[in-house]
């Protein structure tokens, strides 16, 4: 597992080592060591849960700045549909797009349209190919990584089609090229609700290289854009997406367009893990398709958004309604493309980061040791040792990354033991002195 890039990182100066985050990480990827949180790289799935939970705002996402679009002669903005729901009532999609152009982008290619393409491609995929049931959506990169880390048995259930972001980026580049812009001068920037998307650009899913050149957080572009919206009131018709694409910003949006299927939509990582657990045990046989999103409410609940997710959802639904949508009708593919263009070229591999050892026999031995250590710990799951649970500490110890006395209770026991031994020791005098004492006693 060499140098896996992560968008989620820690601002050391802000972290006070409070251990709030360690219990909320779905993959137990955080430890507090020497007073600072530390993310275990190969375990982190960039879900952003720790960004939300940190009271000090010490967890953050690395993204590109708006300044960086200047590196390119033709910067293109790819707004996630989530962006449309961030502003106050009366803000239209046209206004948002006009604002982005005003901020310096040469073009805007809506990711909502990318989502429409993906709906179409998914429909074709279902018709043409066999996949193990239930098929699981690949749209949320945090969920895809959760599966690679915690549910490797379900890797083949993942729908191997591009995400709306990738589909949009590909189309944007294709169109710019047709217009005669040299591709090395075109920079495509995704305006993102989450850190996981940035990670997915750096470590592409199902492809060797992403079509996206940079990722800007919604929370970073919000301010500049907000200040501009008032002047964009009379913007012309710029929106090309329909309601079906816009709906992808909220959970349930993706499966709307997969007609005649028994689909299930689940959001929030804890809930997602629960559903996946049931899938593995064969409990959900009647379900054909699972739309799973890491954030509560879907991407409107993304860690890099600004607006309250429930408010944002209401707005998205209203905007989608206004845009109109073909009911039961899959959108057409853009001219000059075929559905296969938007499917993966690379196989997804599991990431066996949870196993105790590469050698099974050794792993079993370690598991025995782990159980023994776990039994000896107080079982309070207090987190003072810097690990999320007593079991996690036991696991760290057998992996050689922790120590029994990291546990404050164990430490106290050891200190008490030591004190006892010291008392016992102090009553024992060296034989030479002993004799003297005896003599003294006799006198």
């Amino acid at each position, binding site marked *: 597992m060499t140098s896996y890039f992560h968008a989620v990182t820690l601002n050391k100066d802000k972290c006070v080592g409070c251990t709030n985050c360690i219990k909320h990480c779905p993959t137990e990827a955080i430890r507090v060591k020497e007073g600072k949180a530390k993310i275990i790289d190969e375990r982190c799935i960039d879900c952003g849960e720790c960004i939300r939970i940190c009271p000090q705002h010490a967890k953050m996402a690395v993204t590109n700045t708006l300044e960086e679009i200047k590196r390119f002669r033709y910067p293109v903005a790819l707004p996630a549909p989530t962006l449309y729901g961030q502003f106050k009532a009366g803000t239209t999609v046209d206004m948002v797009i006009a604002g982005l152009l005003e901020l310096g982008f040469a073009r805007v290619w809506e990711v909502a349209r990318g989502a429409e393409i993906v709906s179409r491609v998914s429909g074709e995929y279902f018709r043409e190919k066999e996949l193990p049931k239930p098929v699981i959506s690949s749209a949320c990169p945090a969920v895809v990584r959760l599966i690679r880390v915690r549910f490797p048995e379900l890797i083949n259930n993942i729908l191997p089609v591009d995400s709306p972001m990738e589909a949009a980026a590909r189309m944007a580049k294709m169109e710019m090229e047709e217009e005669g812009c040299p591709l090395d001068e075109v920079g495509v920037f995704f305006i993102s609700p989450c850190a996981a998307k940035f990670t997915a650009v750096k470590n592409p899913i199902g492809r060797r290289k992403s079509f996206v050149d940079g990722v800007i957080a919604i929370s970073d572009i919000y301010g500049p854009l907000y200040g501009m919206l008032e002047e964009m009131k009379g913007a012309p018709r710029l929106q090309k997406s329909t309601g079906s694409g816009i709906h992808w910003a909220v959970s349930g949006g993706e499966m709307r367009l997969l007609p005649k299927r028994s689909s299930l939509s689940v959001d929030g990582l804890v809930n997602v893990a629960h559903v996946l657990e*049931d899938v593995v045990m064969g409990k959900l046989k009647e379900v054909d398709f699972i739309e799973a999103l890491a954030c509560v409410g879907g991407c409107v609940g993304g860690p890099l958004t600004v607006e309250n997710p429930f408010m944002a959802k209401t707005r998205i639904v209203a905007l989608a309604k206004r845009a109109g949508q073909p009911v039961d009708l899959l959108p057409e593919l853009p001219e000059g493309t075929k559905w296969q263009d938007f499917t993966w070229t690379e196989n997804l591999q599991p990431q066996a980061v949870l196993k105790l050892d590469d050698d099974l026999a050794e*792993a079993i031995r370690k598991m025995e040791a782990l159980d023994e250590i776990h039994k000896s710990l107080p079982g309070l799951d207090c987190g003072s040792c810097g690990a999320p649970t007593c079991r996690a500490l036991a696991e760290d110890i057998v992996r050689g990354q922790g120590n029994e006395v990291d546990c404050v209770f164990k430490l106290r026991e050891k200190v008490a033991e030591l004190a006892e031994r010291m008392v016992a020791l102090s009553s024992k005098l060296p034989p030479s002195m002993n004799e003297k004492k005896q003599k003294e006693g006799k006198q």
Partner: protein
Amino acid sequence: MNDKSRVEPIKIRFPVEQGDFVRAGEASSKIKRLLLQLGFSADVIRRAAIATYEAEMNIVIHSWGGFLEAEINPLKIIITAQDKGPGIPDVELAMEAGYSTAPEHIREMGFGAGMGLPNMRSCANEFTIESQAGKGTRVKMAIWETEEQA
């Protein structure tokens, strides 16, 4: 260099209660997690998860209670599901897909479609079942890595 068969196997046992639908699946879930940490292949984990879950559900639905046990060594996983209960009068019939003795109210909950035993047999590399009317049932399954699976 490492003689795999000489490793002491891990043995864990979970009690399973009759009619406890709320906790049903917990034992299978824990066994699954263990297998993942030990580094078994996705295929083995998948088959073991389905087999243990079906076995656990059978105890919950059909018996008066029992236990689920997993014995894990590097070469294979042996799952034993043993219960006290009415037993299965005709084991051969019960092995046919679709045959079920689950009472109506349990079928209405979506369980007991009669796929349990055949499902378990298809997931396991070795499968044996013994049942005694009025006493109980014991299912023993062995699962190991097979060649075809990468």
